[in-house]
Structure formats: structure tokens, C-alpha cells
């Protein structure tokens, strides 16, 4: 049985809740219209369609769009050897959807990681703590507005409290730009930078003020 047949069976069962299966590079993707029903869809996929292995769950931050977050579930069945991708959107205001830990126990750590990195909560998870960052860390680092260089946190002498050794230097690209040109340190104009909160910009100015010069030729001044 091919993945597309299984996707059609799923569509038959849930009808309008699911989008038509999309195919890209021979991978099947379906969107679940209502994130509140993701657990129900997953449970059916596991029990009736044989998707007994949850490969991965991940999240995407569509910064600037609404709904802001997209959750991506990768399902796989050892019986039929077919993968299937389910996607569902969650708004920033809600930032919550049901957990699938009761369907597959492997979802536990994946959901904790998503909570840790993007701040999306999973109702019914039971143990939703940070997993990679430490307890009490105040930010969600994989969100798009979080700068690559990090932000100071209230734990002194831990990560993100001092500038990286080459920060502001001529060969260090700048985080967060749209393309490589906007990240290129030698051509960047600070005022035109779309991500004004970029910590490295500030740092570069600090270095300039304290030492009288930044490393390298410095940013091009706006005309």
C-alpha cells in the first residue's frame, strides 16, 4: 500500500478536517485544519492505519504571519513502510494544542523540546518542562525574533552573557538577515537592518565606543 492510499483513507475518515494530500519529492503532506483534533487524527492513524512509529515532531515559527506556529508530525508504519507528514497551525495567542504522548510515548521528549525551543504548550502532557535549556531560562531561542548571538539572562557567567570572541569582526556574518547580502558585515547598514534588536549590532557599537574602533572597516554609514 502506498502512502497516498493511506492519506486518502485518513481523508475519508475525517473529511473536511484534513486538506487534500500534497506531494513534494514523493513525500505526502496533509494539513489538519483544527489543531485541537490532532490527537484524534493521530490515534486513528496509529490504530487503524498502522502508523505505529512517530518519527519526529517539530515546529516552525512563521514570524509575522498568523497563525504564527506550524507543528509538523512525521508518522511512519513498520507494517506498510510508508511515511506521512501531518501539519497543523497554532496561533500565537493560543500557543497550545493537545499532546500526543498518549498515542506514542516517544512524543514526550519531542514535545518538551518544542516547548523549550518555541514556547508552544501541549495540553495533557503531564511533564512539560524545559529539556535542552535549563529550568527558569526566560526565552524561547528558536523563535525567529530571538537573535543568533543570544541574549543576556539573569544567570551570570552562563551562556549568552558576554560577546563571542570575534563578535563585530569583519568576517562574522550578522544573524537573522533575509539573505547573505544583508548578513554580510561589510555591506550592512545598521539603520536599515530589519532586525533592530540584533545583539551584535549593539555589541559592535559598544566595542567602537570603548576602543575607539571596531574590528575591520566597520559598517557603511547611511547616506
Amino acid at each position: 500500500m502506498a502512502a497516498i492510499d493511506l492519506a486518502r483513507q485518513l481523508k475519508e475518515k475525517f473529511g473536511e478536517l484534513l486538506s487534500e494530500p500534497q506531494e513534494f519529492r514523493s513525500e505526502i503532506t496533509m494539513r489538519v485544519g483544527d489543531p485541537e483534533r490532532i490527537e484524534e487524527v493521530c490515534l486513528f492513524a496509529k490504530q487503524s492505519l498502522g502508523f505505529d512509529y512517530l518519527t519526529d515532531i517539530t515546529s516552525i515559527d512563521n514570524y509575522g504571519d498568523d497563525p504564527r506556529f506550524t507543528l509538523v508530525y512525521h508518522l511512519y508504519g513498520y507494517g506498510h513502510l510508508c511515511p506521512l507528514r501531518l501539519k497543523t497551525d497554532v496561533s500565537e495567542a493560543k500557543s497550545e494544542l493537545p499532546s500526543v504522548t498518549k498515542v506514542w510515548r516517544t512524543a514526550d521528549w519531542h514535545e518538551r523540546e518544542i516547548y523549550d525551543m518555541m514556547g508552544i504548550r501541549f495540553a495533557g502532557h503531564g511533564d512539560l518542562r524545559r529539556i535542552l535549556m535549563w529550568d527558569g531560562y526566560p526565552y524561547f531561542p528558536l523563535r525567529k525574533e530571538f537573535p543568533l548571538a543570544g541574549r543576556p539572562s539573569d544567570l551570570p557567567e552562563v551562556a549568552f552573557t558576554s560577546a563571542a570572541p570575534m563578535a563585530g569582526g569583519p568576517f562574522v556574518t550578522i544573524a537573522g538577515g533575509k539573505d547573505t547580502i544583508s548578513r554580510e558585515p561589510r555591506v550592512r547598514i545598521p539603520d536599515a537592518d530589519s532586525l533592530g534588536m540584533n545583539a551584535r549590532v549593539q555589541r559592535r557599537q559598544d566595542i567602537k565606543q570603548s576602543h575607539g574602533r571596531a574590528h575591520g572597516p566597520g559598517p557603511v554609514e547611511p547616506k
Partner: protein
Amino acid sequence: MALDRWSQSNSMAEVREFEFKEPATRLADARRMLEHAPELQPSGAQPDIPADKMVLNMGPSHPATHGVLRIVLELDGEIITKAMPDVGYLHRGDEKIAENMTYTQFIPYTDRLDYLAPLANNVAYVLAVEKLLGIDRQLPPRCQFIRVMCAELARISSHLLGLGSFAMDVGAMTVFLHTFTEREKVYNLCESLTGARFTTSYTRIGGLSRDLPPGWVEQCRKFCDEVMVNIDETETLLSRNRIFVDRTQGVAAISKEDAMDYGLTGPNLRGSGVQHDLRKTHPYLIYDQLDFDVPVGSTGDCYDRYLLRVEEMRQSVRILHQCLDKLPSGPVNVADTKIVLPPKERVLTRMEELIHHFINVTQGINAPPGEVYFAHENPKGELGFYINSKGGGTPYRLKIRSPSFVNLSILPHVLPGHMMSDVVAILGSLDFVMGECDR
């Protein structure tokens, strides 16, 4: 279907009967065993006085945690009643970093995922990007053969280390030194192939950074012969070693259902009896042209996982031999200079190549919008890259599905009911690496 290629007979055909117990049952059994076995108590000891449970912090810098895993154990005497793994000490934000650089610039970061098998990570990552670009079926044959050899060398190297440190953790120091001697030769091969022993960064999107150096094929053949001897010797040191067998057989048996439910992959999944190997079920590169068997365990205990890794190394050597015999000549890169950097002398003499070089380096390879997930059978399990692209030279989101992270998530289920000293055996048999777990 590729399934008919599965090995029907393997060296582990002898099936041992085993009862899988839930942690609560295991715990009760362990307590009962201690109560009813006076010979296990020290002679002349007073009967145990019921005491509070002790919380013991194991790691993050404990030699058996192979890096920086921390486990908070709740102990009742010597029996573990609860285990809470704490990961993230090696978190470097690789996924965040990937969003901020071109696809090619991320290749060196993949070396630092599973740093015991960097070549395999390189191969996995570029295959994922190539799938996004739609060129994964157009790779030159020589490139595919070399990549398979890289992946198998990495598997041997990773399993040698895994076995060595596993054996050392349960008391067999010799094995560790023995396998490391052989691992050194893999590093030598890596060095002559890539220029680096550890951080290889060998593959490029659409090809390889360089072709095989002269004499490498002979060197590799010699290594294949030598490592087979070493594997046999290692097995004679362990497989029937009373101490090793006592410490591993029946310890941390993971049932088929649990293994699938917790998403275990690689040797840990196959040790529990699930016949699943991505090289067979979803053959990529030239794995469908190669003849090899996939060993499967029967009880899913530490001993099975050990046996399985030994056999996997033998199969890897078999694959290496076939690749070395069949190795075709020809280019190692795809011809498209919008993907692979054009040759330097043409860059310096021709306009078009100069433009391609410039765009490739400054803006990256122009990938189409879309999303792909590519899974590679890494030594530790299924290493997957999910790439979400909005077009252009950088990924919008890159998720690394690391096998070690998922394999470790079964610890709270497996550890309770075991003795404190079993922890090192269990961790050794799960064979994880924290660089990949924490990313």
C-alpha cells in the same frame, strides 16, 4: 519490495525465551529476590532497616555517561525506583545556527553532531539537501560508492568505540584498548581521504570535496582484512566471557512494542527484534545494489544489542569489500555549476563560471521552496533532517531528528527495577552520543 532481501538465517538464530516486565513488576521482583536470597546479603548482616529513598545524581561528568548526560536516580538501597535523565549540557543551538547560514556552510556543523561518526553525518545532511534540490537520483556513480564507503567506515568506527567503552564500563579494559587500535586505522583512512581525522566535512552538496587519494583503495582493503581479525578477537574476549554475559544478559530487555512506541531506531530497535533498516527498506545511494544482511536480536537485552553491533560491523566490512571491487571511475560531482563550485582554473578565466562561483559562495545554492525529510541509517539509528525552505540559499527551518535523543528518552521506562551498577551496562548498550542528543 526490498523485504525479500532480508537475511533468513543469521548467526543469532537461537531465540532465548524472555519475559518482558513493566518497571513496577520488575521493581517488586527485585525487592522480593533480595528478601528471599540471604546468600546475597553480607554474612552476619543485620536485617535491612527500612530507610528513606536516596536521590543520587549521576553525571554530567561521570565516565559511564559518555559525555555530559546527567541522570537523577532515586534509589531504594541499590535498586533504582525512579530515573530522570537530564540532557542539554551540550546544547549549541545547531538548528538556530542552520537558519542563519547557507546550506554548504552548515556541513562542518554536522561533524559535531555524532562526533564518533562525522562522515556518516556529512553524507546524511547533503543527501537531505540534495533531496530538496531534486538531484539525489542524479549523483555520479563514483560519488555514491564513495559516500557508501564513508558511511560504512563511520559505522565501523562508531561501533568499535561503542563496544570498547561498553566493555570498559562493565570491567573489560582490554577490549577498549583493542578496539581503539583498530579505530586509529579508520582515523588514518579519514585523514588521507579528507585531510582531517576528526572533523571531516568531506561531502559537498552535489558531490564530494575531493576524490579518493592515490593508494586509498589498497589501504582500505588492508584495513578491511585487519578489522575482521580484530572483530573476531573482540568477540572471543566478550561473547562467552562469564562476567560480561552475567552483567548484560537479561538486563534492560526492551520489548518490540516498547521499542517501537518509544521510537528507538538503529541497533537498539533491531536488538528488540524489529526488522527495520533504512538501507533495506528505503534504499538510498547504491544500497539496493549491495548484498548484505541485517542482523536482528531476539530478546532486546544489553547482550543482544552487543551481539548485533558486532555483526553489523562484519556486514559493513562486507559492503566495503563490494564497493572497493565495483568502484567505478568518473566524476564525483554533479555537472551543474549552479550547485557545485566550478573548477578554479575556469573560475579565473571565464565569466560564467566566475558568476556561478560568486553566487554559490555569497548567496548559497538556490533551493526551491518546499519541505523534505530525509532519514539516514546512521550508526546510532535514524538520523533525519527535516528542511523547510522558502527558496533561496538558507533553510527557513532545519530540524535534526537525532537518534541518540530519542533513544535516551526510554531511560525513565527502562532503568527502574535495575541495580545501580546495571546503569553503566544499560547506558553502554544503548550507545548514545551527547553531541547529537543535545545538538
